[in-house]
């Protein structure tokens, strides 16, 4: 009897992994427009017409898990399919793993910065481009209302939409290539190699002098090596060193100076996006940009790689929400 039990137990141990059913942890989707979130973590328990969730406007950007951003100008159904939520019109599959949906009037992508840099360089204009890491439109809006960031407020052009996943590697890659993750190959933080040429390659091909001023980490493998910076004055911030470096390049006849400021994102994560420390730091960045503008006789362009949402008393990003996806876009033609 004991032997039988032992045998049965052994067989069960061997067969158990093969018998277990796969379990899905399904996440809902977020629906937002350019004013805020409409629905969060929505799971369509039965096929649901998207316009029943968003109202009359039938212009959408479907943000898919693989980084695709699919523009649609007609209604479609949202349905559960296994672990994913799919978008379908009749039997036609539009998106196979929807993360979120932007609803409403067309909005520029952050990749517009690439097009603008490229166009201005072609016109032989000098370009100072600034990546404000983790700066959401909501943060900008709050500070503009309070009159705390006069320079950025004066050069604000429009809202822009980030890419999925809204994290630095993919946002940065889209900004310097103009391409979406599905084309440039940078989907999230695990990707460093870019599959298409960036603005730095364009600049080199135009015989332009370009520099990329980075923090203490090289984020992406670009055609020019970034100049890395360390915290020399031990104030636990590298942006001031990057700023000093940018000033030192002002009289070096550069055609493209690309600056990546990290401090807004750092403080957003640590204190929260609307914390006093974070908002005060954005004011500091505004004053840096004002000072650089005083010294620069070319175009100034700026945007963010992604925004930031409040989470557990701090900040985070990486979801397809309004706070993470909608960022400000700035342009000043001197």
């Amino acid at each position, binding site marked *: 009897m004991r*032997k*039988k039990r*032992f*045998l049965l137990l*052994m*067989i069960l141990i*061997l067969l158990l992994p093969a018998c277990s059913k796969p379990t899905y942890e399904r996440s809902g989707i977020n629906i937002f427009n350019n004013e805020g979130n409409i629905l969060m973590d929505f799971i369509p328990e039965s096929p649901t017409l998207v316009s029943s969730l968003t109202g009359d406007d039938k212009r959408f950007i479907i943000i898919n898990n693989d980084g695709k951003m699919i523009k649609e100008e007609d209604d479609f159904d949202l349905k559960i399919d296994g672990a994913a939520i799919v978008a379908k019109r009749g039997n036609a599959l539009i998106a196979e793993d929807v993360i979120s949906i932007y609803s409403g009037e067309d909005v520029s992508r952050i990749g517009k910065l690439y097009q603008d840099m490229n166009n201005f360089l072609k016109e032989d204009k000098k370009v100072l481009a600034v990546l404000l890491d983790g700066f959401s439109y909501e943060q900008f809006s709050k500070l503009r209302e309070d009159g705390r960031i006069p320079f950025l407020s004066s050069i604000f052009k429009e809202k822009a939409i980030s890419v999925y996943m809204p*994290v630095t590697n993919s946002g940065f890659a889209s900004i310097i290539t103009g391409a979406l993750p599905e084309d440039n190959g940078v989907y999230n*933080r*695990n990707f*460093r*190699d870019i599959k298409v040429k960036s603005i730095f390659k364009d600049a080199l091909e135009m015989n332009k002098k370009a520099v990329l001023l980075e923090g*203490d*980490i*090289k984020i992406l*493998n670009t055609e020019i090596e970034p100049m*890395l*910076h*360390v*915290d*020399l004055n*031990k104030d636990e911030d590298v942006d001031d060193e990057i700023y000093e470096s940018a000033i030192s390049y002002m009289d070096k006849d550069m055609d493209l100076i690309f600056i990546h400021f990290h401090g807004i994102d750092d403080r957003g994560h640590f204190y929260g996006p609307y914390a006093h420390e974070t908002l005060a730091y954005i004011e500091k960045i505004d004053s840096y940009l004002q000072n650089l503008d005083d010294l620069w006789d070319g175009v100034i362009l700026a945007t963010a790689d992604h925004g930031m949402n409040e989470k557990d008393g701090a900040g985070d990003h*990486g979801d397809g929400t309004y706070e993470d996806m909608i960022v400000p876009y700035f342009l000043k033609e001197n």
Partner: protein
Amino acid sequence: MSKNNKAALIIISLLAVAFIVALSLGRDTTNKRMDLLAEAKIELVTSEESIEVDLSDIEEVDAENFIGIFDSSTTDKSEHEYIGIEIRDLLGYKSIDLEDKKAVIVHGADGFSVAYSMDEILNENNIYLVYMEDGTYLGGRESGGRGPYETIILSDTFSNRRCKWVVKIEVVE
């Protein structure tokens, strides 16, 4: 021998074979990782010179066992035991002058690079060049490893300034 006994014997034999195969594969992996470490070279670069160092140089510097926390945006915090040498000790062993230098930039085989300030480098027990984690050699890029060498900075809360697959250590003026 009864049918039940036979079946039990077959199952136990199969498990024993699987165990021996796994053990032998593990030993094979360890040997490959040791070979990779023995063959690996790192370039030490200053404005004046470029020196190549290998395991024989690393072994001349006192290796330390220490505990480090790994924490990334996609993983939970986990504690590991590492063996490696301090980068400042390696540079000192090769008589590289660090006075009035600004930073040390470490480059990985994948094109990644990370800058450490000279204060961070000179701080005792802070920045290490490691080759073992939890008793296992780190392995190479092709086999999904993070070595043969990786840098670890203990004063950082997060692990985003670690550099995998180290191939070059550059002292910047």
